[in-house]
């Protein structure tokens, strides 16, 4: 407990220094440049810290080189014991500040996706409670989920120069955004969905609908020969490189993107954008440029039927990219993973 307070005190001192540095950086960086967006994210993070009392700061702040970085999962609590600042424990005003930080750090589509996943989890919680099963309730022995069961953590002190990480996650969501100066990576992250389709205020919401539809469109745009290479002859029941598989890279399979036409390659990039584009556009664009540069050595693999609406797994794997999309036995429960084997948790940025 004492050490938590010590961390909070150090964080408070760091916060003051960082505010001064951010103020200077704000006056010099163009708003939509990587440096400018970094400044805005750090500023939004500092507003979150400033809105908290000492106990709150102690909950949200973790040392950069500690184990928190790799502590994320798709599972609900307490099947996976999360640490950080729980949304259920903050005031409405603090929650607004936190959501403002997320909307700053993510692209418009990325932020929408995160909200759709969280609302989906709330739908799941409501359905569970309605069925009298007590689902989504914390403290009662059952799994705790729903839109209040998401946690925020800062791994390292928010800074425009030193590396740090914004971690936000809960059931079916893990966003791990590592910032190092004006560079940022969102690998590894796990956007998932259950239910994969729900109705909210008369509107059908499919948090991962684009991922699904673009992948089916791509596999159906392949000719018979290409499909023969892309479609694996075996069943893939789950993510291969999901939570807990940091640092592992599997032998790629499927069709190489160099065997795709320009139009098909563009479809593949559009599909990848659904993950790489979750982060703010300022960071997504250089990331997509890197993925495009490695496209000749990128593979697309498919397992399952190719009619949209079927249960099908797919994987996109290149030198700096792993994406997996794995339905959990049916189309209404999807797990996905996004990794960069060369730069998970910003390893490449930090090594420089």
């Amino acid at each position, binding site marked *: 407990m004492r050490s938590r307070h010590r961390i909070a005190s150090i964080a408070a001192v760091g916060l003051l220094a960082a505010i001064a540095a951010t103020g200077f950086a704000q006056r010099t960086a163009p708003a939509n440049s990587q440096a400018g967006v970094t400044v805005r994210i750090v500023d939004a993070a500092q507003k979150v810290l400033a809105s908290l009392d000492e106990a709150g700061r102690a909950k949200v702040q973790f040392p950069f080189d500690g184990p928190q970085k790799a502590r994320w999962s798709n*599972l*609900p609590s307490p*099947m*996976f014991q999360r640490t950080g600042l729980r949304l259920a424990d903050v005031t409405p005003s603090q929650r607004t500040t936190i959501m403002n930080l997320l909307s700053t750090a993510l692209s418009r589509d990325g932020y929408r996706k995160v909200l759709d996943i969280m609302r989906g989890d709330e739908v*799941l919680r409501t*359905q*569970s409670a309605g*069925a009298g*099963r*007590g*689902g989504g309730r914390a403290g009662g*022995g*059952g*799994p705790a*989920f729903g839109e209040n069961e998401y946690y925020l953590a800062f791994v390292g002190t928010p800074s425009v120069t030193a590396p740090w990480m914004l971690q936000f996650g809960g*059931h079916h969501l893990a966003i791990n955004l590592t910032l190092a100066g004006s560079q940022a990576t969102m690998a590894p992250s796990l956007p998932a969905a*259950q239910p994969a389709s729900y109705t909210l205020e008369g509107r059908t919401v499919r948090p991962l609908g684009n991922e699904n539809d673009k992948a089916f469109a791509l596999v159906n745009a392949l000719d018979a020969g290409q499909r023969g290479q892309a479609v*694996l*002859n*075996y*069943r*893939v*029941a*789950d993510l*291969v490189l999901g939570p*807990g598989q940091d640092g*592992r*890279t*599997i*032998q790629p*399979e499927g069709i190489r993107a160099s065997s795709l036409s320009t139009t098909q390659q563009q479809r593949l990039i559009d599909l990848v954008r659904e993950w790489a584009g979750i982060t703010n556009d300022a960071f997504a664009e250089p990331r997509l440029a890197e993925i495009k540069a490695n496209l000749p050595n990128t593979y697309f693999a498919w397992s399952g039927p190719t009619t949209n609406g079927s249960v099908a797994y797919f994987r996109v794997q290149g030198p700096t990219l792993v994406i997996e999309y794995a339905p*959990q*036995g*049916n189309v*209404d*429960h999807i797990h996905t993973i996004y990794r960069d084997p060369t730069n998970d948790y910003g390893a490449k940025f930090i090594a420089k």
Partner: protein
Amino acid sequence: MRNSSRSSTIRVLTALLIVVSADVSSAHRRDEYLQAARLGIEPDRVQIEVDLTPGIAVAGQVLAEVDGDANRSISSDETRAYAERVLSAIALDVDGVPVPLTLVDSFVPATDAVLEGEGTIRIRAVARIPLLADGSHHLRFRNAFRPDLGVYLANTLMPVGDRVTIRAQERDVDQRELLVDYNLRGDPATRLRQGLTVGFTGAIVLVANVWWRRRPREDV
């Protein structure tokens, strides 16, 4: 009597957990036993990782097999015994020659996590490969553990370094069997040593030959 009471307890616990966790787990595999294997092929060994996650409907059954004395606490001996059982159902051969697996490490999570269908049993093993010549080799991995419940993943990890290159992989439809064609390149240091040995031997033969030809001969 003891076994019967143990099964009843586990059945009740499992039933309770199924009700409590029904919605979260509803779309997860409930009555299947996910077994994910990853193979790291190296010149002189194969590192094998197997992660086993029983679904909520079969977790009690699996746990009963792990918890030999049924005290709802998994000891290191029980963990090791279960891991050995799993490994005994896994066959590995290289170029048609069976290679035994040696357990390196094993882990069983908290029983509650297993019963909730979200606990993963982790097993690490190694298979030492006899000295192989440079060139093409063929590895066969087959997991026959609990085929009545098993859902399988089998993948080859990207080799570390440039001595091993994966040329092709084949699987059966359920991924119980994985065949890997790979290429092995000699160790540069070994090749250098071999080259030096050949060169040195050649030099000795050459010097000896010259000496033999030029040696003083007695006139006949």
